[in-house]
């Protein structure tokens, strides 16, 4: 979770009313109801996650909000403008699912091109492009055509183009797709950083851990229908179960605690040592290897943050 701070009660950035999308065939016959009527409000400064399995309507929702497709019914408004209004795009950054960019351009040309579309002056464009390329770690590859990039590199330059206009609202479609664990962590850090800079972020993903780690609120979609909507911590809290996490407790003390719990009628579920996450373990190993090249990585410190 990014922060335990209360949700900012800011302006509504995105508003969807009865928004639905039915894909039709050439003859106008209904082919698939990709999104059933959806009501949604997203406020300034939130990290909002659209969660759901493949084909649940996450990307369709995002495309409707961007005006890339037209709703079958209902309406979506972004910054108070209709979703199809081009004017809203001045304040938006969008990272598509697979970084749909021009493969014949290199990284600098790509950012220069998208910067021009925002009417950013040449000097500022060059400054932002250099900073973003450095931020996403592509400085050495900035003159290579994107066709030569790996999937991860393409995602990184995709992120850079989404931020070239310093947007107020960032929409990320599967932002960690194709990234290695380090890239995934960096992406999540970036999303949290964007929030700290006052941006609103909407991301859709089917990777539950990613959503859980960064989002303030989530909407769970399934078969085009909204199933859950709320703050992550509220949705994940298991009521009726109390958890203690204690460091340096002896086995005798554990027995004593158990006895106390039994005296108060508590039914024991689990007592043991917590495990760290595989992501944390991997990052620890990589960091250690980089710090001490040529040596075998140390075991993770016993103090490593446990899962949960």
């Amino acid at each position, binding site marked *: 979770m990014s922060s335990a701070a209360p949700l900012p009660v800011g302006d509504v950035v995105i508003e969807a009313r009865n928004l639905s999308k039915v*894909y039709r065939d050439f003859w*106008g016959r209904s082919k698939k109801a990709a999104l059933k009527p959806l009501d949604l409000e997203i406020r300034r400064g939130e990290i909002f996650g659209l969660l759901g399995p493949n084909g649940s309507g996450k990307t369709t929702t995002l*495309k409707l909000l*961007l*005006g*890339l*497709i*037209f709703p079958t019914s209902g309406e979506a408004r972004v910054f108070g403008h209709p979703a*199809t*209004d*081009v*004017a809203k*795009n*001045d304040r*938006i950054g*969008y990272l*598509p699912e*697979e*970084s*749909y*960019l*021009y*493969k*014949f*351009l290199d990284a600098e*040309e790509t950012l220069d*091109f*998208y910067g*021009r*579309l*925002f*009417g950013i002056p040449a000097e500022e464009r060059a400054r932002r492009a250099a900073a973003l390329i450095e931020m996403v770690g592509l400085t050495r590859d900035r003159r290579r055509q994107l066709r030569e990039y790996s999937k991860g590199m393409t995602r990184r330059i995709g992120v850079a*183009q989404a931020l070239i*206009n310093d947007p107020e609202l960032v929409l990320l479609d599967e932002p960690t797709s194709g990234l290695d664990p380090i890239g995934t962590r960096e992406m999540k850090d970036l999303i949290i950083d964007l929030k700290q800079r006052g941006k609103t972020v909407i991301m859709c993903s089917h990777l539950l851990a990613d959503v859980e780690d960064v989002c303030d609120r989530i909407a769970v979609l399934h078969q085009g229908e909204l199933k859950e909507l709320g703050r992550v911590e509220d949705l994940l809290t298991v009521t009726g179960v109390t958890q203690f996490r204690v460091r340096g407790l002896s086995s005798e003390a554990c027995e004593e605690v158990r006895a106390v719990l039994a005296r108060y009628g508590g039914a024991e579920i689990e007592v043991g040592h917590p495990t760290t996450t595989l992501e944390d373990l991997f990052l620890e190993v990589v960091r250690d290897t980089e710090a001490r090249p040529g040596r075998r990585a140390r075991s993770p410190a016993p103090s490593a943050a446990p899962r949960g």
Partner: protein
Amino acid sequence: MVLEQEIPRFSAWIGPALLSFLLAASLVALFAAAATWLVQAVASGPLEAGDRVYRGVRTALGDFAGIATGRVWALARLAVQESLRRNVLVALAVFAVVILFAGWFLDPANVDPGRLYLGFILGATNLLVCTVTLLLAVFSLPADIKSKAIQTVATKPVRTGEIVLGRIIGFTLVGTGLLLVMGLVGWAFVVRSVSHTHELLKTSVREVLDGDGNPAGFQGRTSAERGHRHFVSLDAAGGGRAETFRGHRHAITARQDGEGLAFEVGPPQGILEARRPLRGRLVFLDRQGKPAEKGISVGAEWTYRQYIEGGTASAAVWTFEGLSERDFSGGLPLEMTIRVFRTYKGTITEGIHGTLQVRNPSTQLRSEAFPIVAREHTIDEFWIPRTMNTVLADGRTQQADLFTDFVSDGRLEIWLQCLEPAQYYGVAQADFYLRAGDGSFAVNYAKSCLGIWFAMLIVISLGVMFSTFLSTPVALVASLAVLLIGQFREFIARLFASQVTGDSTIAPGGGPIESLYRIVTQTSITLELDPTPAVQVMKLTDTVLLAPMRVAAGLFPSLSALGTSDFVASGFDIPGDLLAAHAAETLAFVAAFCIAGALCLRAREVAS
């Protein structure tokens, strides 16, 4: 050179043309709005459909108002980068191969090498440039939609008009670069290919003496080069020129060497020219010498040329206007192309004899008749002198001055008559002109390249427009279909005029129903149908059917009508009025296709 329609002055042309354009554009816009409303009404009801159409129009207008040059330029640059990285410059290699083949297979000994080389090079350049740019135009946007790169662009503050306009400008820049290179290479190739010279040996020259036995000059023949040689007439000093043959001549200079006079033959003159003609208005006189609407038809279906009968009072009379002594102080350089129709063979190696006369249109004073011999397939030159004889009523002759006695308020008549009975001269208004001056061939060639550029611009905007809502192969076929229909634009206009006026000579054969009737009954198109009630109904139906076709035909661009290579190949300066009209027409089509493309792109979902 065939010039079927008079070239109007741009100032007179632009008013009605603009009106037609606005009318056609309004009709198309209304039709599109009505069709959109109908489709929306089926899905959402008439009121909701009306609201959507209104909002769509309002948003589209707002979008057009918000077009920013910076974004258009960014998209244009992208189109250029895309083209270059798609190896568009391969087209230049193809052009190099075309030039190589032209060098190998075009015959430099051709009767008219200038026309042959210029026609080929300009035609090849036109075809290559238009093909390459059309392919670029129809591939680009569908490829972006397929690769979904358009989604990243469409989520930026980019108007659909900017996407369309940016592409048109980008591909135009690419095409312009290709055209520049091809034009320059083609020009050098043509100039080098037609350039030749001859030798004039002393042994092939004989001295000519005057009546007193004094040396008056030299006569002789040049060596044969490229399948021809020239007769030579030189003055006593050895200077002069080789006579015109196959449309060109050579200047000859003489110098003294140790063994007497040595001759030097210069490069060809007259192959690559840019004549500026002053054309007159043509009327005919019939066999009795009475004014007639037309000349005689000799049965040719193509009615461009009318004929006058030899040995009768039949005459073709051109009236020239705007003649001034300042422009033609030495006399009138007349050039003419006269076709000959023989009803008997005669001496086939000789031309048909006729006369030219000048006449004052106010006083009817006539000059003496100047004999001419009409030769087929060549432009005959005739110099009308400043001073000439006129025959008085009593049979005496008297000298008269061209401008003092024959030109009246800048007007002058020139009469052409055929002398040989049962032989005919075929003439057209544009085939008979005064050579008012010459322009630069290089500039004229550049003007012709500008005509290719106009065609390219239309092809690009058409391809981009179709690519906004069709896949690449379908957009390609649709573009080619529109260009093909455009080739029939003039024909449909003539056909409609023929139906409305009832003058079957404008476009013989009638409209669709009459044509079908003639096919079924195997009736020749030159045969007038009896005006029975059934035929009248048929013709009326054709007129009704042709009316919308006539209106719709104006919406299709005719690339051949924009072509000016015939002017250059025939050695005529391309009139500025024609070029300006072509520029305005191109601009109108590009604007219309650009707007249509932007609206189509806006109306579609760029993601799926």
